[in-house]
Structure formats: C-alpha cells, structure tokens
C-alpha cells in the first residue's frame, strides 16, 4: 500500500495514486453491482406482487359484480330461471330493475381473447323475442373460468331447473406478460366465488 502511506505521511501533494484510484474504483464497482442486483430483484418482486394484488382485486370485483347482478335479477317481480348452465357460460333470466320487463344476462368466456363477456338483453313480450341492450367485457386476461352448478344439498343438478347455487372459479393468465412497469395484469391469481341462485323452475 504505497499510495496509502503517501497520503498519511502528509508531505505528498498528490491526491490519488493510480493504484489507489483503481482499487477504489474496483471497490465501488463491486459494491455498486451488489446493491443494484439486490435492488433489482426487490423491484421485480414488488412489481409482481403489485400486479398480483391488482389481479386479485379485479377477480373480486368481477365476482362481486356477478353475485350482485344474479341476486338482483332473482329478487325482481319476474320469476327467475336458469336457461343455460355450462362450465364456460351461464344464462339467467329474471328482472334486473324490478319493472316487470324480463331481462336476460349471458356470461360467457371467449377463449380467443381471454375475456369474460356479458350480454344483456330485454324482452317486452315475456321472453318471446329479445332485444340487445348491451354487451360488455367484465374481465380480461382470464386463463380459465369454470361455472360449477349445485342443486339442493350441494348435489350435482340433473338439469338447469334443479340449480340452486353456482360457484365461479377463475384464474388469471400468467403467460400474458406485458411490460414490467405498465399497469399490465401479469402474475397468476385464482379466486372462487359462490352465489345462491333463485330458480322458479326448481321444486
């Protein structure tokens, strides 16, 4: 450590010697790289977690939305019933705004766009003809969705008329990678929700 001796001896006018400069640069580089590596992995972790939390929030919102809509439709003036009950789609007929006019909602999964869509139709002639009110995407980046139907006592229903409850299982797409720092919804999340369905054809 010649350079070191130089500077403490006090008589030298020099700042760093070349050796000192190189050593300090090397130390700075090692410390810098270590810190950068740790920080980067920490940022990645917190970004992923952030996205997971957003995903979870979206899943919850979606399940809450469907639960509320199905309960509202079932409690209207029109006696409600289930029209289609498939693992990937659910069609339910009832009265959404309690005005004695029939409404029909149709939730279905579009695998090509990974979206859960909702069609809302209305019928002024008690279900003979239907007019489209609107069609929406209520959930994006869905990897899988499964509607599971239950009859009384959580038995497997023999047909639509026996259904008294539905469980919705959704998982978000992990593959759908977007840029790390956008609001891209990456990161796998899964959620299940369950709702009781009022079914007039059930006995």
């Amino acid at each position: 450590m010649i350079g070191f001796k130089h500077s403490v001896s006090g008589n030298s006018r020099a700042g760093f010697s070349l050796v000192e400069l190189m050593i300090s640069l090397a130390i700075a580089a090692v410390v810098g790289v270590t810190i950068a590596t740790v920080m980067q992995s920490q940022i990645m972790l917190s970004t992923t977690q952030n996205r997971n939390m957003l995903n979870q929030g979206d899943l919850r919102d979606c399940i809450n939305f469907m639960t509320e809509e199905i309960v509202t439709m079932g409690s209207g003036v029109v006696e409600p019933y289930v029209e289609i009950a498939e693992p990937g789609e659910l069609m339910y007929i009832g009265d959404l705004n309690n005005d004695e006019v029939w409404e029909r909602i149709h939730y279905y999964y579009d695998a090509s766009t990974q979206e859960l869509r909702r069609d809302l139709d209305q019928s002024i002639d008690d279900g003979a003809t239907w007019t489209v009110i609107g069609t929406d995407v209520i959930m994006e980046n869905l990897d899988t969705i499964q509607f599971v139907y239950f009859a009384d006592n959580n038995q497997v229903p023999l047909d639509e008329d026996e259904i008294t409850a539905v469980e919705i299982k959704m998982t978000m797409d992990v593959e759908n990678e977007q840029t790390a720092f956008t609001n891209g919804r990456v990161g796998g999340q899964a959620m299940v929700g369950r709702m009781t369905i009022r079914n007039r054809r059930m006995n």
Partner: protein
Amino acid sequence: MMSMLKKALRALQSGSRRGFSLIDVMIGLVLLALALMFGLQVSIASSRVTQSNMFVSSAANLAEVKIEELRNIDFDLVVDGADGAQINELGEVGGIYSRSWTVTEDMPEDGMKQVTVFVSWQRMGQTSTFDLTGVIAP
C-alpha cells in the same frame, strides 16, 4: 466522515492540494452501502406486508364460499365440520389453507344457526388464521 471534512477544510485554508485517501473512499462507500441497505429493508418489509395481505384476502374468500355452501344444504345438516385436506385459493385439494367451521345453535335468535368459519395457513413458520361469522336461518 470527520477526517474528510477536516481535510477539505484544511485544504481550503492552507491551499493544500491533498485529496482523499483510500481509507476515506472505503469509509464513504461503506456508509453509502449501509444507507442503501437500510432503504432496501423498508421496501422488503412493505412487500412482505403486501404478500401477507394477499393470503388474508384469499382466506377471507374461502370462508365466504364455505358459508354460502352451508346455506345451500338442509338446515338440519348444518353442523360442525372441516375440510378433509388442505385447499388452494380455488377451494381445490392441494393448497396451503386448512378450513374448519363451528355451528352454534339458536344464535343470535331461537331457531337460527351461527356459523364461524376458520381458515388458517402457514407461512415462514408462522400460522395465521382468518375467521368469518355468518347467520343461517331455516
């Protein structure tokens, strides 16, 4: 740090052109590293909280689903119970959540049943539990 300041001061006063020594640089770097590591600790702690919140949220969901499930069965069949195996976020076998439920009869009114669902899970050696209470009427 003090030696650096003193040196800088002395340099100004005396017109000396002496620079930092290696030891100054090393002390400076160590201090810098310590400060950054402290900042990192804060961010690690906050991401731990985020993560544990997500587990709580999943557990709450599983508890809600169980209460809805019990609503759909004959009132007489609503009794204490537990899942046979640990479940995942979707309620399927093979996760980290254990779920059990207890039923108190004639609560809060005669003829009703008060159900409390407990969902517990283990993470980093710590067991956490979430419980949710609901009332089922015949």
